[in-house]
């Protein structure tokens, strides 16, 4: 009798927890940066969904989401965010896209997690006559008929420019290390491949290359270890700013101060780090531009003012290298 009483208590607590949480969903979502369905009365009241990998610990993705949301809601339409939950859950993104199609959203803006995996579901979107715009990431070549346009940074180029910059800094001689993203992430791979192309033919040697899994603790550990195998390093290239903090800690731990660090993304955090002299430079992307252009285009397509077939298949949202030299403009454009 005593025990069962406690059982009741315990179960009640769980129930309460659940109810509180579900209440939280309805009330807090408005508050969270990327809100759930908040139907706005004004304008066409069309629903435009944005699907991406995650906005957790990823300022760049968050910036795209925010800019798209603000643009959509400014135009008086409804914004909806779906994220696959983590950096690698490809299948989940596909499921969510299927769900979006099933509920007949008016348009989809998509940041594909994998160049191939989304093709089948995009075909379905096409059948359902839902226009799709790709941002940040594109899909396998030869499927241009599946989307209106792709707006994004050319990751390979970004990496390549990063490479040339680093070559500049080191005046074409020295050792670099690479801290990759998670294995199996195409964006990360393209950037690194680009970087390698960038330093091609210079006297720069790659003395270490490990996966940091987009995580600070992992990045820190691999950097520490790589420094052990060869501490004579002049520069480190990392596939994203999300791992810079860890790398900095590793270098600090090893007491190395003169190592140049090049990253990719261009967030405010990074600009601060540059200003503080921790980070040497980063290849900025422009999520705001991506978001805005994407929304303008899609709205145009929806109200017929833009002929989908006439839009270029690739709109480069551009990149630029931030460093101490151009901090002023960097501050303006950084997300």
């Amino acid at each position: 009798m005593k025990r069962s009483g406690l059982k009741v208590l315990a179960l009640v607590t769980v129930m309460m927890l659940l109810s509180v949480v579900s209440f939280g969903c309805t009330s807090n979502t408005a508050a969270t940066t990327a809100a759930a369905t908040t139907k706005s009365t004004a304008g066409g009241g069309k629903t435009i969904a944005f699907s991406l990998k995650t906005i957790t610990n990823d300022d760049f993705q968050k910036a795209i989401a925010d800019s798209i949301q603000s643009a959509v809601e400014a135009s008086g339409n409804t914004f909806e965010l779906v994220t696959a939950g983590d950096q690698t859950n490809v299948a989940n993104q596909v499921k969510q896209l299927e769900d979006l199609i099933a509920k007949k959203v008016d348009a989809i803006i998509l940041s594909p997690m994998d160049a191939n995996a989304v093709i089948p579901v995009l075909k379905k979107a096409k059948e359902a006559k839902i226009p799709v715009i790709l941002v940040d990431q594109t899909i396998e070549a030869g499927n241009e008929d599946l989307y209106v346009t792709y707006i994004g940074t050319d990751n390979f180029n970004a990496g390549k420019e990063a490479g040339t910059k680093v070559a500049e800094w080191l005046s074409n001689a020295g050792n670099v290390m690479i801290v990759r993203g998670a294995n199996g992430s195409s964006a990360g791979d393209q950037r690194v491949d680009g970087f390698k192309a960038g330093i091609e033919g210079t006297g720069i040697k790659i003395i270490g290359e490990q996966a940091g899994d987009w995580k600070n603790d992992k990045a820190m550990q691999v950097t520490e270890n790589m420094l052990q195998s060869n501490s004579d390093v002049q520069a480190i290239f990392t596939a994203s700013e999300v791992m810079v903090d860890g790398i900095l800690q590793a270098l600090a731990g090893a007491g190395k101060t003169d190592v140049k660090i090049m990253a990719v993304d261009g967030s405010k955090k990074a600009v601060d780090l540059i200003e503080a002299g921790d980070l040497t430079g980063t290849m900025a992307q422009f999520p705001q531009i991506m978001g805005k252009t994407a929304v303008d285009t899609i709205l145009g397509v929806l109200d017929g003012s833009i002929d989908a077939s006439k839009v270029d298949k690739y709109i480069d949202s551009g990149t630029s290298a931030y460093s101490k030299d151009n901090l002023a403009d960097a501050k303006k454009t950084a997300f």
Partner: protein
Amino acid sequence: MSVSTKTINRTSSVNQFFRRFVKNNGAIVIFVIIFGFALLFVKNFASAQNMLIIIKQSAVPVIACIGMTMVLMTGGIDLSFGYNIGFTSIVAGLLIKTMGAPVWLGILAALTAGAAIGLGNGILVDKVNVPAFITTLGTGYIVLGAAQIVSKGNTINKLPKNFLAVGQTPVGVFNTTILIAIAVAVIFYIILQRSTYGRALSAFGYNKRASFVSGVATSKIHISVYVISGFMAAMTGILLTIRVNCAQPDLGGGDYTFQIITAAIIGGASLFGGKGTIVGSVFGVLIIKVIENCINLAGVQYFLFQAVLGIVILFAIVFESIKNKKL
């Protein structure tokens, strides 16, 4: 004649001692083997500095692994551990950086949050009899969600110096994090070896019914280990945040949980309860960190990392189990 018998006796007794040592300290043996191998074949491994790096990398997981060991000793498991790390990391980060609360308050809050989650697990496991695997799996999902909600997905870097000082103040060649880890290990070693609580805990782990009949406060113990585990997860979260100077909701995570469970089991803990020692768990962690270190030093291709790590660990585990059968 008599001499020969003597020698025989001695050798056999030495043999005896060796067997017992291997039986009770499998982890140490494995560690020695791997370490020796690394010394011989891995370039740049044998440097004082590298040893220090390995110790630094092990410090935080050691704390985590000890927390997990306590749960494993009762025959339970805590899958929410890794997500708890992320949650507490954000709690501390938010309070200290964003809200500018005093460091001690932030840390206190994080520890309390962690312990509270542990308490939830404990009650569900002991009072509602939900299998630990499920309870902690469920709370794991919940805590993960909570962490993301609280942080809105943001990370918080460039944390205040006085917060970082908690874990990074150098002490000789070491830093405070390492000292904390050592302190935790020593304290829990004493608790398990010398305290009535530790004794009751292992009795409970081996035979719940018998310890209940012997008047052991089984419920208290059962719940307490989950609270401890949650508390240690919070410690891990805080120190890990300090280590990478960045508070983030996806710190730790599921992989982290599984890695420390693996470490604990290499260290001789059993999923059926009872077995498990602090020394073993410490060496369990060291083993994994040494292997990872070697893989990196040897410049193994980045995409080979996981496979190689897994295979080596597999050998360690096979060794453990064979040892348990044979000796």
